[in-house]
């Protein structure tokens, strides 16, 4: 029986050749467009890599001699904890809500995505405020028991991991949910008919089939955890990113910081490519679902157990933090809330929506070109274009800014020499630059869901469409796009929410007057006024509900 999933996975024609071999499209044009997109996205990453031309031996020697060992250990602990945690929580919850019926399931189905709208550093601050020695929880414990020394310290590895798992599990949840929904029940029932227990069917059929989605989700969570600086700073938990910022701001060596950052990228690239290699020749095409699947109905204690688990996660990751933000915001709303908040809100939503469209479109372009002709060049371009997400935000923001300033200068010189026109900077300080920057930062976020839904499409569908006389355009719009719809929506939603939360690039590249809710949070927190930051943070969470609700309505109308 051990071959069940293998047999299923390896059905279908080999895709190595790419669908362009029998789909009569102008591959060159697609490739050209993809390379241009990849080049723009990769330029800032290249800027970071160029740092190796500037020696920074002193800083390196110091770091290696003092803190680097501990930082690496901390980072490994963080990776293992967050990776394992988001996988268990994300995939487990997705499995519960897609396959079973229990009290509150319809609510949890979408509500479990809500924590996406809360930036990790906000969650971290709330956790520390509530659970540290001076917080209300330990305070009441001391009032009752006289001592709270037995309480596990929140500012510890365990605390950071817990907060990041709660902040980042929705990536895995969203993608796994889409994958489980798309798999439908048929594959699983085949496994059951062949004699697998329900558990074995989940572990050996459903999970392996969802691998592209799960890998994409876990990869996003890990990249986010690696790049994070805000949350780890609140815990004073030093990771590799800490070394990057220390080199830059403490030791005044941006080159050393960029060198460290490019090592981080190298590590991420190797990990991602390794995961691909381990998949080998496995295929993940799923049959199309027909109609609505019946969910297994849980009864009695198991039903309420499922409800309790979902409720607990929602409580910890969303309801309690939002409640705390609300109470802080209430205290400060009188002095801070004014008409400008409408402006911040609109700016935030406008930037999020525009960036979601642009980035999703570019990611679709890259993923589609790869499917047309998956050769080494396109694969390399895609890989490179999606690395930016693992870079600490401020480092990438500076890389983006430096490359844009360079482009501006080239363009100005070109104009000067050709027409004798003198111009100021066009890109830097413009909205276009900001949208491009979001594209660079969040290409991986859009690419993950789109790519994993491409993985599920059987190439024979395209062949069938072709043999039925569909034109290229029809194949794209009437076959591919509808099949990718969940993936595209997830991609757009994720980018939307990420852009709303994004800070370093927004701060550095926003045009005059384009303040957003995230920059408002920064204004408050930069001088430690966290409680006053609750008002913009809460508004940000509310704004984040817009895309989540949009996605929920779409995906429920679909099934």
């Amino acid at each position, binding site marked *: 029986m051990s071959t069940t999933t293998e047999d299923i996975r390896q059905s279908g024609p080999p895709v190595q050749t790419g669908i362009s071999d029998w789909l009569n499209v102008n591959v060159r044009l697609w490739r050209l467009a993809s390379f241009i997109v990849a080049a723009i996205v990769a330029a800032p990453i290249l800027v970071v890599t160029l740092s190796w031309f500037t020696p920074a031996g002193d800083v390196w020697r110091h770091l290696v001699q003092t803190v680097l060992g501990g930082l690496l250990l901390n980072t490994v602990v963080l990776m293992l904890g967050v990776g394992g945690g988001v996988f268990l929580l994300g995939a487990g919850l997705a499995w519960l809500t897609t396959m079973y019926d229990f009290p509150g399931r319809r609510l949890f189905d979408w509500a479990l995505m809500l924590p996406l709208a809360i930036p990790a550093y906000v969650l971290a601050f709330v956790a520390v405020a509530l659970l540290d020695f*001076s917080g209300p929880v330990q305070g009441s414990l001391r009032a009752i028991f006289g001592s709270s020394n037995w309480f596990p310290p929140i500012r510890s590895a365990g605390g950071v991991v817990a907060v990041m798992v709660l902040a980042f599990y929705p990536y895995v949840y969203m993608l796994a949910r889409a994958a489980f929904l798309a798999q439908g029940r048929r594959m699983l029932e085949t496994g059951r008919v062949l004699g697998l227990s329900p558990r074995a069917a989940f572990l050996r059929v459903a999970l392996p089939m969802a691998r592209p989605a799960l890998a994409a989700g876990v990869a996003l969570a890990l990249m986010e955890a690696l790049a994070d600086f805000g949350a780890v700073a609140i815990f004073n938990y030093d990771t590799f990113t800490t070394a990057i910022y220390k080199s830059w701001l403490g030791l005044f060596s941006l080159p050393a910081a960029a060198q460290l950052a490019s090592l981080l990228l190298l590590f991420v690239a190797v990990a991602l490519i390794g995961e691909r290699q381990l998949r080998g020749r496995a295929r993940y095409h799923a049959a199309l679902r027909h109609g609505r699947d019946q969910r297994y109905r849980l009864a009695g204690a198991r039903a309420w157990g499922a409800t309790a688990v979902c409720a607990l996660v929602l409580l910890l990751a969303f309801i309690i933090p939002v409640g705390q933000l609300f109470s802080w915001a209430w205290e400060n709303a009188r002095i801070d809330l004014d008409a400008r908040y409408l402006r911040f809100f609109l700016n935030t939503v406008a930037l999020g929506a525009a960036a979601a469209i642009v980035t999703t479109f570019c990611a679709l372009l890259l993923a589609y070109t790869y499917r047309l002709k998956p050769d080494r060049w396109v694969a390399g371009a895609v890989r490179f274009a999606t690395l930016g997400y693992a870079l600490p935000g401020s480092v990438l923001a500076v890389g983006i800014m430096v490359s844009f300033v360079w482009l501006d200068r080239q363009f100005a010189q070109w104009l000067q020499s050709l027409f004798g026109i*003198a111009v100021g900077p066009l890109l830097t300080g413009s909205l276009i630059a900001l949208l491009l920057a979001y594209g660079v930062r969040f290409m991986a976020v859009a690419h993950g869901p789109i790519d994993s839904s491409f993985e599920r499409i059987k190439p024979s569908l395209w062949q069938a469409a072709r043999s039925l006389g569909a034109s290229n355009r029809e194949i794209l719009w009437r076959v591919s796009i509808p099949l990718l719809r969940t993936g595209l929506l997830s991609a757009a939603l994720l980018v939307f929410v990420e852009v709303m939360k994004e800070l370093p690039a927004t701060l550095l590249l926003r045009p005059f007057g384009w303040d957003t809710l995230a920059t408002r949070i920064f204004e408050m927190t930069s001088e430690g006024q966290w409680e006053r930051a609750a008002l913009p943070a809460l508004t940000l969470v509310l704004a984040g509900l817009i895309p989540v609700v949009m996605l929920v309505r779409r995906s429920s109308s679909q099934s």
Partner: protein
Amino acid sequence: MRYLKSILLSLAMLSSVTAFAADELVVYSARNEQLIKPLFDAYTAETGTQIKFITDKEGPLLERLRAEGKNTPADLLLTVDAGNLWLAAKQGVLAPVNSKTLRTNIPAHLRDPDNRWFGLSVRARTIVYSTERVKPEELSTYEALGDAKWKDRLCLRTSKKVYNQSMVAMMIARHGEAKTEKIVKSWVANLKTEPFPDDTKLMEAILAGQCDVGIVNTYYFGRLEKKQPGLPLALFWPNQKDRGVHVNVSGAGVTTHAKHRAAAVKLLEWLSSEKAQNLFADENMEYPANPKNKPHASVAAWGKFKQDTINVSKAGSLQVKAVMLMDRAGYK
């Protein structure tokens, strides 16, 4: 081609209009919006000069100035911490300003020896203690917080915050590296718990009884005091018999490639003037840099103190050494 040219021309005009409008100043600021906007509004009301500004963290702002080079729209860089100002000057993005007004208004130790930046408000970093568990007579100097009697009673903020880096840099300037490292190690040995992410959290820990003494910037204390009047915490001015209390500045300099240099100098002079100094400092409960101005009443209530008069630019030139020293001493 003509079509293209007209597009390019209009683009060019657009960009020049947005970037270089006539009587309008552009400020890059690492001091946050709610602290600078009231000032700029007052200046605009008084002189009619419009001020546009971008806020960001010091590091990225400085890189932006460097990358933009000659094309930068920024006329003035406003930032916190002398170390940041020192670095900006060292990297050549600030130009010297030879102004008698500024030299008169701002004491020598609070500005760049080469006149490229000027401190505009003073931030004192001092000792805070629990009035319930500590008598002020037990306290004397920063250095003495390493004494055995403070074992498991001391709380510190993270060494990654520039305020602590500057403070240790100034100690290196006084004591040299070897002695400073010993002092920092003795602090670390006395720590009750992991260093805190900010000063407020540190003071809350003292209030909750986790530890008894710590080092904070006074305005954080002021903010907490405002929220909880009569709280059992007090400030102590250390080292009054020797070097004085460690002070830092927030300050500003005119950029090297300022498009409106004269206007920028004028704004800088205005910021240092008696008229503006209280507006600048009081909003954040800091001390005015101009000695003619008195601090706000609630700030003055903490008492007078002698401040360290080593030039604050030392915080910059010795910062790298300070950071490395704190890493060696295990101060996280």
